[in-house]
């Protein structure tokens, strides 16, 4: 047998990024101390403390909202669309120029492979700013009437799975439409948002147009409940989303929610098999499965289930799990101990329910939070692992016999964020796409994103759309 081709370590250098030992709050164009204590941001791949992050107290939140209001009233609402576009283009270019720095920091703070932050996250961040920069002076042509107005101050709370990308999804359309923002990144992944604050300064964005405050759930709650915000945008768990919806009810705040998912990835017997296997991998193992639109339920036509699952397992054996900073790493670290425990718990539930667990054969590093790619077969609709969002690298495999059964099973979920369809037959793609109660339907691909395409959910996956022309509506005073 020939000598194995072992890839030598190919670590990306972290020298490009300066991480301060502590960070304050970015309010009114400046960093200032918070008065709510601090928390530690950890590299989940090594458990090393990267920096101390300020926790914004209620008073800090109020200070940030007031800064945003002032900037809205005095500056941003009077700034022309063409002028706003200039700032957004400038930010987009700065993101590109500093892309390596941002990618390295994202990987250190989040645990995702450098390959992904370098090739997916950061390029999409820049693309999003470029895209909405283009809309800023064309709002009257967007189909919302002759002179659509902004809402005012937007309170934005984002998750830890795509820290900078979710920031871009929130901030770019808000600014393009003429709003000012107060954004709170997730408590485990604040660092790229704080670096973004520096980019705003570099772009000479007027103070107060973008404010970034850090902290945990209490800070987020204080922000969305602040009486002077006009708009709340949240991406995260369905549970928190429901709480926000309750707190916003009865006020005149606009609300968009992008919540959980349990997407069906549906494979018919005429699917292009090798690409389907890749699509299943991209669907659930991309970003360690920390993707709200992940294809976590594989619905495969029964006649090909064994063959497909066999091929899938073989492919999973080639995934490289380990140091996220290594350029050849495919699967990085789980973002936090809390999330790792949730994944372990739900996988344990899968065992108890009688599903058959298979785990890719790979060594897990001794330090850090890791979970090997896992496939459950013999899963039924009645199993919790077929219904609840695991938000980790765990795939549940179910089977179907006919297209109508596939539709029924795919839609039989409280969620409706995304779905995938794999078949060589074009007419079937169209039929399935229109039958799916899901915001995004991918055909013969999965987890592909583009700023021109609206994204959002049905049912408990939330409401409102981000991206594309539709994404503007969330930040304009239009119905």
């Amino acid at each position, binding site marked *: 047998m020939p000598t194995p*081709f072992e890839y*030598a370590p190919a670590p990306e250098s972290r020298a490009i990024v300066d991480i301060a030992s502590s960070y304050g709050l970015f309010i009114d164009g400046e960093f200032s101390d918070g008065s709510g204590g601090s928390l530690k941001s950890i590299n989940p791949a090594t458990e090393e403390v990267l920096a101390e992050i300020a926790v914004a107290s209620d008073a800090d939140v109020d200070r940030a909202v007031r800064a945003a209001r002032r900037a809205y009233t005095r500056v941003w609402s009077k700034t022309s669309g063409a002028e706003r576009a200039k700032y957004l283009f400038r930010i987009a270019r700065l993101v590109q120029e500093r892309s390596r720095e941002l990618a390295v920091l994202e990987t250190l703070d989040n645990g995702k492979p450098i390959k992904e932050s370098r090739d997916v996250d950061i390029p999409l961040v820049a693309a999003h700013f470029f895209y909405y920069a283009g809309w800023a002076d064309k709002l009257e042509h967007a189909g919302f009437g002759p002179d659509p107005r902004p809402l005012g101050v937007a309170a934005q709370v984002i998750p830890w799975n795509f820290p900078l990308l979710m920031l871009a999804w929130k901030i770019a359309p808000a600014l393009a439409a003429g709003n000012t923002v107060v954004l709170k990144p997730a408590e485990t992944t604040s660092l790229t948002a704080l670096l973004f604050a520096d980019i705003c300064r570099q772009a000479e964005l007027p103070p107060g147009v973008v404010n970034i405050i850090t902290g945990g759930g209490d800070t987020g709650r204080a922000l969305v409940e602040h009486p002077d915000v006009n708009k709340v945008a949240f991406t995260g768990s369905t549970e928190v989303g429901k709480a926000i919806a309750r707190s916003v009810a009865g006020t005149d705040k606009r609300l968009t929610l992008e919540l959980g998912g349990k997407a069906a990835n549906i494979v018919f017997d005429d699917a292009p*098999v090798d690409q389907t296997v*890749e699509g299943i991998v991209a669907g659930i193992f991309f970003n360690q499965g920390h993707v709200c639109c992940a294809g976590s339920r594989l619905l495969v*036509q029964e006649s090909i289930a064994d*063959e497909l699952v066999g091929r899938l397992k073989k492919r999973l054996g080639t995934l490289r799990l380990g140091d996220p900073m290594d350029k050849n790493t495919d699967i990085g670290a789980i973002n936090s101990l809390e999330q790792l425990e949730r994944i372990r718990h739900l996988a344990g539930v899968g065992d108890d329910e009688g599903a058959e667990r298979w785990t890719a054969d790979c060594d897990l590093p001794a330090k850090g939070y890791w979970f090997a790619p896992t496939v459950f077969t013999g899963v039924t609709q009645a199993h919790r692992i077929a219904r609840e969002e695991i938000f980790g690298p765990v795939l549940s495999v179910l089977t179907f016999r006919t297209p109508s059964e596939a539709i029924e099973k795919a839609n039989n979920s409280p969620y409706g964020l995304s779905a995938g369809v794999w078949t*060589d037959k074009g007419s079937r793609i169209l039929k399935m796409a229109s039958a799916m109660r899901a915001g995004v339907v991918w055909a*013969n*691909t999965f987890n592909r994103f583009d700023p021109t395409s609206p994204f959002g959910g049905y049912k408990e996956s939330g409401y409102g759309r981000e991206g594309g022309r539709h994404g503007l509506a969330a930040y304009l005073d239009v119905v």
Partner: protein
Amino acid sequence: MSPSPVALISEPGAVGDVTRSDAALRRFLHGLPGVDQVGADARAAALSTRSIKTTAKAFAIDLAISMIDLTTLEGSDTPGKVRTLCAKAQRPDPHDSSVPMTAAVCVYNDLVGLAKAELGDSGVKVAAVATAFPSGRASLAVKLADSRDAVVQGADEIDMVIDRGAFLSGRYLEIFEEIAAVKQICHEDGASAHLKVILETGELQTYDNVRRASWLAMLAGADFIKTSTGKISPATTLPVTLVMLEACRDWYDATGHRIGMKPAGGIRTTKDAMKYLVLVNETVGTEWLTPDLFRLGASSLLNDLLLQRQKMATGRYSGPDYVTVD
């Protein structure tokens, strides 16, 4: 996929079954799972971002050198040119005897005897292109005579072309029989030449065609499947090689036999060669990382590999005057 043709072929006598008529062969080839072009391109592109450094690079450079079919296929080829090439194949870097020999020298038919004599028992094989290379536009009798001539002269390997016209008009059985006939010639009178079947994927164009042609060649007895003649653009590409390697893998899963793979044409740099080796490594696995099962059809690639090899040894780049021009 249902029931999978891949599984069908694993039953005893199955090859005879699916090739008993044009209709049966067509049913089989068209029953193979489709290839989604966007997905195949994306997979090949993703694999080409692998970062191969230090020890891995050194390993890959030597492996790539040992897999080269050092090729000259020009109307201007002369005995002098072929002698130079044979010397280069045996001793790629005159200053460094630790450089492995290339796998083979690949020439036109009439120069096989000369190459054989030059290479002697060095272990470097002689490959001859046959069957009216590169177009394949000749009568069966001429193609077979062409192949027989190469075998008689002592070629270790025959690189034949398929009739792309026949393929594109759906006459699969005709191609099957042609390949089988050449295969027979490879083993005539005690000879045991290896048969490489060139699909000329640049003319087949779609990946579905590439997959079908790969299976057709394997059914007919190919020892290797090869992408291109190098005379048509595009020659080999990463996704085409990926699709062909997947066919090799599926054939192995069904039959237990390993078929070799040879991308050819347009592979000029060390970086390119690494991408191919990564593709092999992550599609069919370590077992294929040997000159017995993977070749690179190339000419200028060797010098770039040598330059990179020197750079790894000395820490600096030398230059084109420090490798031999052949």
